[in-house]
């Protein structure tokens, strides 16, 4: 089973890469873009058969490794 996770910078945490992407998009004439936040996307292949168990396990992984909860939020899709 494949579990998908998105990790993004928390609101209020400076995201200089997102800012640079936004400025570049603006300079490419995408003038409607007012903010970009850059995150990470993970696809985790697990041997567990039960989706609930697998998601619970992935949640543990997020807390312990995949996200730094001081600066990032995670979302299991």
């Amino acid at each position, binding site marked *: 089973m494949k579990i998908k996770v998105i990790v993004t910078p928390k609101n209020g*945490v*400076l995201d*200089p*890469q997102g800012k*640079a992407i936004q400025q570049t998009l603006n300079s490419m004439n995408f003038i409607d873009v007012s903010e970009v936040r850059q995150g990470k996307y993970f696809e985790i292949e697990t041997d567990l058969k039960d989706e609930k168990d697998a998601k619970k396990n992935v949640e543990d992984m997020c807390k312990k*490794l*995949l996200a*730094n909860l*001081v*600066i990032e939020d995670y979302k299991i899709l």
Partner: protein
Amino acid sequence: MKSSVIIFPGSNCDRDMDVALKKFGFKNKMVWHNDNVIPKSDLVVLPGGFSYGDYLRCGSIAAKSNIINSVIEFANKGGLVIGICNGFQILIETGLVNGALLRNKYLKFICKNVFVKANKTQNKYFNKIKKDILELHIAHNDGNYFCSEDDLKLIQDNDQIAVEYCDINGEVSEKSNPNGSMKNIAGVFNKKKNILGMMPHPERVIDNCLSSNDGSYFFENLLSNMK
């Protein structure tokens, strides 16, 4: 005094640290990250570099390596632990010190000498140091210190800010902040102040033939406070 420097895959300041520690009189041992136990030590150093290629987040993979449990145990017993640059990032990822280190504000890898002001109160690292405005070297991409407002209040109330970026006269201002760090923070202590994490590299400036000799004050002072 005995010290141990941990080597992770991708560490590149481990040997500089070994040279510096030995120069000032430490009996130093190099310890591989895959070992489970640190040799008997008075000081443990997590060196700078790019452990595990900075994959995922700087320091995050090294923070889960075999040796880290014994480093945490050593630190929790009050042992002195220093993390320099990537070592600071590893300390952050283990949770031994508060906060996070974000990408530098202007997205540039910064490699230059800076001045930092040391906090001399109640810690073995800077107490009685002969010079408290130090010219040290920084070389990092992710040194932009960040923590929550609550954590900032905690570390301020407990006097845990160890070093701040400043100018040659010791003035701490936005102008002397190289990377966007909150409150110009270049390094922090844990609550008990036996753990020091900082971005600047004292081990790179330990001889007059180098760009600064101010790292010498740091090591000399630390050794004399440990005796």
